[in-house]
């Protein structure tokens, strides 16, 4: 009996009907591919260098905000004349913490709070959180994107592999000034004399 997809089929037990050969080939290929993706995903977790699962802790907004302030207090860069370094009209502080230590990035409407200065090849423990609403941490030009959520401390170890001036944009809508939220990050290599030029860039290679 002939019927179409818009008509009832004679058999009550449709699951007993056979599948065709074309379909069998396709199911094998398609599911095989899904398994490849599974293996790569798990493999990358153990052997790959980029994994964002990280750790997360619940924090209070005030607690986190204090950590940010303490860090800036202690580690804001000074220039040769001893004045604290900052950029932009609102004087966003440049902050350089020792390699291996914690960096607290508290995003808020509409600023990233500080400008990290990192050393090439060193590992930093980044704490990413928000002090008000959701924000999107987007590090350019490498296009690394992470979601920041108030009350959650997102902990990830970053090891930069290229010197340069990076930009941070916010890519989660966070209010009517969302598009104002541009930030900056420097990766320098003091040993090779690739350092801040004091004019918003870096000297030597990679600038």
């Amino acid at each position, binding site marked *: 009996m002939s019927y179409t*997809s*818009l*008509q*009832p*089929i*004679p058999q*009550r037990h*449709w699951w*007993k009907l*056979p*599948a*065709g*050969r*074309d*379909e069998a*080939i*396709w*199911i094998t*290929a*398609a*599911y095989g*591919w*899904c398994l490849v993706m599974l293996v790569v*995903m798990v493999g*990358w*977790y153990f052997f*790959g*260098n*980029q*994994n*964002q*699962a*990280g750790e*997360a802790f619940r924090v209070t907004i005030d607690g986190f905000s204090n950590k940010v302030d303490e860090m800036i207090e202690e580690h804001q860069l000074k220039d040769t004349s001893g004045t604290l370094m900052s950029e*932009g*009209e*609102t004087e*966003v502080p440049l902050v350089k913490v020792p390699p291996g230590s914690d960096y607290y990035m508290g995003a808020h409407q509409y600023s990233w709070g500080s*400008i990290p200065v990192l050393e090439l090849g060193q590992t930093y423990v980044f704490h990413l959180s928000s002090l*008000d609403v959701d924000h*999107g941490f987007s590090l*350019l*030009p*490498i296009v*690394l994107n992470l*979601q920041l*959520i108030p009350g*959650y401390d997102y902990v*990830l*170890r*970053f090891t*930069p592999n*290229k010197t340069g001036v990076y930009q941070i*944009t*916010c*890519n989660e*809508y966070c209010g009517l000034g969302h*598009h*104002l939220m*541009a930030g900056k990050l420097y990766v320098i290599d003091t040993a090779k004399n690739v350092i801040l030029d004091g004019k918003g860039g870096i000297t030597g290679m990679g600038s």
Partner: protein
Amino acid sequence: MKSLQEYFTCPDTGLKFHQPVIALAKANIIAAVVYLLAGGLLGIGVALTRWPAIHLLPSEYFYIFLTGHGAAVLLFWIHLFSCGIAYFFCTTPINARLATPKLAWVCFWMMVIGSAIATVMVLTGQATVMFSAYPPLKAHPLFYLGVILFAVGAVGTNFIILATIMKARSEKTYKGSMPLATFGVMTYAIIGIFTWVSGAIIMIPTWLWSMDLISNIDPQMYRLIFWGLAHSTQQMNIVIMITIWYTLAAVLFGARPLSEKVSRTAFVLYLFALQFGSAHHLLSDPGTSFAFRTFTTSYAAYLAVLGSLLHGLTVPGSIELAQRRLGLSHGLFEWLRKAPWANPIFSGLFLSLVIFGFLGGITGVTMSNQQINMIIHNTMYVPGHFHGTVAGGTTLAFFAFSYWLVPIITRRKLAYPKLAQYSIYLFGLGMATFSLFAMAAGHLGVPRRHWDITFADAVLPFQFPGTVQLLMGIAEAGVMVSGIGALFYLLSMFGTFVGKVVEKGAAQPLAEPAGVVAARMHGGTEPAHGKGLEVPGSLILAMVLLIFLAVYYYAQYKYLGTIWTIR
């Protein structure tokens, strides 16, 4: 005789309709189309702003328009339209009566009133929080109330659909098993119930919070449950779209699935994968473990992916099989080349299938791989991806289905058939362009939902390279083309709804039967039936998709491997 007025039989197609279904379908479709018009205009406003050379709207209006666009098209257009046609799928093909037409009207009005309230709140600038409304961003309480009303109405329609099918089963209105199309809609309704319930679980507390009756909504918990709602609504429109694909293939070519088992199992897989799959929206969020992420994006998501891949073969396969049986069996692709490309019902079906698979599908699977997610999350890539799924895929399928169903239920000839024909190509190709170029811009880091990528007023200056401006310009020009396509669709729908009623011959002419085409082409052919494959052409198309996917996926991991070490 009650039954005389209770049913209406279409003189052109022989389809028998329960009268209330006709009125309900018309009402839901009209409401949906109004939202497509509103959402389309808002979308054009957004696009003209994101086009760097034009930058039309001031920032506040941009964010209002964007919120309005998302809500109007993603929620209201898609779901009102789906409800309207779901009533058809759960009755006519199985000879059934709609279980409770009165309740269906109540649901309809709840959806209309709810969506109207939410839209007004957005357009008056009191709910500029994007459709995702992540707290602690707060909107006016009426916005949440509107969404809740809409969700309650929508869940009501899902219960009515299930009740109708159960009643038909117990009254034995049909023999054997229900048609594949009805099976699809049953899946849709089951998913709908899960979906809207999780919507209520999160939206009700958020509404209370917006009135200060609850002090705190955990923003991470919100995201988790919200995507339980929003991801499954996406799954709902996929299911409806696939049901449309099978149905139009049946209508045009007398097609049926290669095998009932595989096509139906593919629907069932969606049910299993349902709620877990939604976690792929949280892959770059803090707060979940590697194991959870892996489980949800592999085991769970792959079941859904597999379901979609299966339909990806069996939908074109069902067309190929039908065409070959009738004589279009030369070579690998005669069945496709000689298909009725000038008929918008067919071109809409096939373009929707291709755009959904090649643009929406490949990119969706790739970006739900855990680590890859962090190089696309929240960039322009994301709108690029989902305009491939929900605009170029689902919406285009809705266009095609409208061209078939609306003349039948309104008893009016399709108005402006030429515009209808062009609408498919303009909308499809425009959306494909937007999708591709927006994704390219996303790969270069352009943020989504962003008013000004020149950062003219930001404290720290930043400029994207010129390529980015160019990519965004092309993407938004694509949007303009699709806007013209949508306009043609709207004109054709409007003309049809206000047109003259005809006794007979309202239904849109279908394809010239393949047998006739084959006879003209090569004096008819004996259906080539062989030891070989049944649908080699479709299998090749499917394999090409898989190869594209593999290559693209490889390129993403390769790039990922070059960036900083992140642990």
